């Protein structure tokens, strides 16, 4: 695939087709998203309301931050992190316990992020030293993690009127406060990933392990770094989750997983690694987060939401697979 990628130097001017190839995904996504919005708006003009915007931005926030983590895992060639729910709930529990202890908000955030990083590091430890595939390792650690969390707690909630509780219910500039950190993180990660040495190493390892290794990139170190960083994003998502979720139990995050994976694939971030643009996550997650609200306006029950989500995922991966088939000679 991307064997001749310049790693530690700025990339030379890429051919036009390559440069704008990524833009196609964005245009299609934007078009589909706008079509959905227009269709819903024509059917029910009251769809265009502040309330809709709030709901969509709210849904986007947690899923968006988790999708950054998933995107990092996918882009670096580790396929999928199925243990995000356990990591998220674990970090949320830490956030709850720290706020119950009355610690200041920055400490709460730091504690949650460190917990997420620790969880990512734990996964990486097994993956790197036992040389096992991340999909199965994270499947197993999610099993173990959620069961262990159930042994620790059944129901948890951040204390009323603590800083994190207030933050979860605030709104800035007409949108939920939790939306802005997500937006900032997607923009920053999307800017840094192809422009920094570490970002390019990560993409290189995902694109072609052997070539990256031949260039002197440590696969182990990169693997550790990607899992710990991705874990950090899970930890930060836990702050947003704990602040907004109300009472939650260890299974509360299981439903998020599909939207995250669908969002990452729709954004054109290849799960087999090496390709993708994090900025596209804003479009894909935005589109996926509009669907539930749209369905409500169309008068469809929330059960139909899964049907649409599932079909969209099947179509997205079929397109992804078809592209890959055409690329390989």
């Amino acid at each position, binding site marked *: 695939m991307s064997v001749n990628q310049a790693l530690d130097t700025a990339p030379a001017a890429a051919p036009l087709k390559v440069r704008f190839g990524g833009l196609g995904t964005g245009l299609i996504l934007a078009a589909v998203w706008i079509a959905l919005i227009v269709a819903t708006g024509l059917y029910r003009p009251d769809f265009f309301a502040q309330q809709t915007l709030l709901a969509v931005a709210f849904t986007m926030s947690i899923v968006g931050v988790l999708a950054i983590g998933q995107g990092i895992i996918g882009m670096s060639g580790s396929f999928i992190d199925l243990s995000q729910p356990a990591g998220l709930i674990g970090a949320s529990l830490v956030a709850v316990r720290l706020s119950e202890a009355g610690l200041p908000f920055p400490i709460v955030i730091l504690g949650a992020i460190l917990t997420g990083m620790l969880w990512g590091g734990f996964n990486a430890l097994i993956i790197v030293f036992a040389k096992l595939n991340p999909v199965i390792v994270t499947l197993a650690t999610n099993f173990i993690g959620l069961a262990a969390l159930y042994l620790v707690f059944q129901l948890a909630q951040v204390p009323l009127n603590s800083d994190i509780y207030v933050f979860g219910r605030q709104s800035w500039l007409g949108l939920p406060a939790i939306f802005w950190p997500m937006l900032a993180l997607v923009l920053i990660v999307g800017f840094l990933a192809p422009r920094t040495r570490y970002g390019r190493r990560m993409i290189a390892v995902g694109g072609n392990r052997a070539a990256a290794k031949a260039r002197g990139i440590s696969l182990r170190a990169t693997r550790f770094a990607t899992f710990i960083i991705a874990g950090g994003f899970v930890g930060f998502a836990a702050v947003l989750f704990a602040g907004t979720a109300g009472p939650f139990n260890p299974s509360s995050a299981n439903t998020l997983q599909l939207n995250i994976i*669908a969002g990452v694939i729709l954004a054109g971030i290849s799960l087999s690694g090496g390709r993708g643009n994090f900025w596209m996550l804003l479009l894909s997650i935005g589109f996926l987060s509009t669907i539930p609200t749209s369905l409500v306006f169309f008068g469809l029950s929330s059960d139909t939401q899964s049907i649409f989500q599932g079909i969209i995922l099947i179509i997205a991966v079929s397109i992804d697979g078809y592209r890959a088939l055409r690329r390989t000679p």
Partner: protein
Amino acid sequence: MTDTALKSEPADYVVPHHPVRDFLTGSVASIGITFILVLAVGLFWVGPKFVSFGNVSIMGTFLIVPLIVGAFAGFALLSGVVDLSIGSMVGFSSAIFALLLSMGWDPFSAAAVTLAFCLFFGAINAVAIVGFGAEPIAATLGMLVALRGITWVLLGTQGAIFAFNIELFNLVSTQVFGLPLFFLLAIGLTLLAALVVTRTRIGRHVQAVGGDDKAAARAGISVKRVRAGALLLSAFGAGLGGIVFAGQLGSAARATGLGLEFQVYAALMIGGYSILRGGVGNPVGGALGLLAVAGVSNILDLLAISPYYVNIIVGLLLLAAVLLDRLRGGDAFE
């Protein structure tokens, strides 16, 4: 392996064949040992009650659906594709079947129509994965969610369809020699699947496609046809499981089949299958994996230990099984 390659003496081009050693280090042997270990722990901790007909009969009743589903889903794993949608397919199948029964259909035509629906959705999986080259895990994850949505819409606001058929219930809960008839049938099905895998041309084709699809294609096997067939079989098995489930419960509910895919695949992987590479595993090993996991959860149940420990043990067993698979020649991940 590498040591022999380094020696300069000419290879004699005879593939070393050690049936006994292969058997002892093979996947069935390691799950067999695990199974015996679980039995021993059960006998030691719980006492003879653990292997009493009553207790085995209870375990067997719960194992019927996973055994049926696992025996068919194993073909997909063996051919190198994984079908995550089996759990939802079981739920969907039981919902359709219960719906048709509640509309007054006779069980046989209801079952036939249900299986046809399941094959239709299996065909969509096959088109996406084989036709378009979609990533199997992601595509069937989509099918899992879509089918769950369809099932919930079918079940309506009540969230359940009641379709109790006394003849069907009597048939499903028939006991033979103190064990459920359908449990014995499911074991028989597993043995039949094992025969197909190891002794027939079809089985060898499936293994060849899963082991190395390029080599299989060069040998003239249609990789696409085998994989599409395996995905259809997996959907068929899940449909069958759903029908039996609906017969057992006399109803279909939102929770029917929920999470069954993890239960089945965790057990199949513990039993020697791999969801990442095809060509390894055996239906007997898979069934022993299911029995071992059921045994563990039964032991904890009888000792009144928190059921969450089962998931921790299953997770650890899973990691151990994948490590063993890698040591036996699975791909190392770097």
